[in-house]
């Protein structure tokens, strides 16, 4: 009876630890998948499958190593398997692209956390109209064509507007990073 209790307790601890590590690295894994498969819908499906695989292979994880890096490696193999399964199509990015991006994405930068923090500050600096545009376009996975129809504007103007706002947000983040370096 004691043994059963001890096993149950140990399994609970393992589950809690896994959930904690996955939550801490959620954005990193999601970004990694999205970089390799730049499409919200496919990346969402792959994230769910990756989470299941991570749990299945959690026994192999070395707790002294970086969980995020381990999870991103498994995510990479999930993408490779997904590409094999989905076959060839014209919309597909090349294997060279996947390898280049995967290699670069694994180089974790200390700046990533700061960039994220800077982005929150830059969002607050946007005009209400632009902030609402971002909110509308990123709060659900509707295509931009559908969003443009909902907003009663042309798809081309929505692309331009969104591109302009993203450009200004990125410039703002870069500026904040430059300022931080000068400190």
């Amino acid at each position, binding site marked *: 009876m004691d043994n059963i209790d001890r096993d149950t307790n140990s399994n609970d601890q393992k589950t809690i630890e896994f959930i904690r590590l996955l939550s801490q690295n959620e*954005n990193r894994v*999601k*970004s990694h998948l*999205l*970089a390799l498969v*730049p*499409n*919200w*819908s496919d990346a*969402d499906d792959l994230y769910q499958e990756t989470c299941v695989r991570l749990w299945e292979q959690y026994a192999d994880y070395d707790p002294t190593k970086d969980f995020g890096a381990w999870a991103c490696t498994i995510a990479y193999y999930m993408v490779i398997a997904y590409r094999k399964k989905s076959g060839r199509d*014209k*919309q*597909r*990015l*090349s294997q*060279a*692209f996947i390898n*280049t*991006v995967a290699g*670069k*994405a694994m180089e974790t*930068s200390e*700046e*990533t956390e700061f*960039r*994220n923090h800077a*982005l*929150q500050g830059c*969002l607050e600096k946007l005009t209400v109209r632009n902030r609402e545009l*971002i*909110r*509308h*376009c*990123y*709060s*659900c*996975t*509707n*295509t*931009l*064509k*559908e969003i443009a129809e*909902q907003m009663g504007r042309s798809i081309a103007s929505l*692309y331009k507007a*969104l*591109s302009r706002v*993203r*450009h200004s*947000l*990125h*410039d703002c*983040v*870069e*500026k904040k*990073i*430059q300022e931080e370096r000068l400190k």
Partner: protein
Amino acid sequence: MSHSNSNYEDFSEIYELVIASLSGEITPDQVAKLDKLVCNDPRACELYLQLIRESTSLRTWASGTREETVNDIPSRSHSNRSQTLWWRSIVAVASLIVCFLVGRNFFSSTDQSSNMSSNQQLILETKAVMAEARSVLDLLDQLEQENDTIVMLIGEDADVDANNCSAGKEAS
């Protein structure tokens, strides 16, 4: 390692390519262009990764604020309206009590005949107050119905938004 903004100026088309790709509306030509840009220039690759990470953060932010908008507005609205209705109820009940007291004083009067004209005046006034109280109660009922309708409509809007999102996801 990051570069200054000027280092990315040559790659401004990456913004539109990333947006099109995430939305699932990228054309084969655009795929080829994105592929070439990212594979051939490390600066383009770095910008691409930064934009993807920013997109993930923006989505997390947008989802969080969206939940706030959908869930909080109906409850705030409902709370304020309930408070208004509460005060209106107090006013209506107070009006009825005043009417009752005035009416009781009038009917308990001992010398009805000598005060006939003034009593008739009082009857008319009491009836007017009663009618006023009734109209306040009617208004109260109407407001309560409107309140329920607004809360229901906001709830339906939230459902429609959620359905649009899931429908869009399925479609894409």
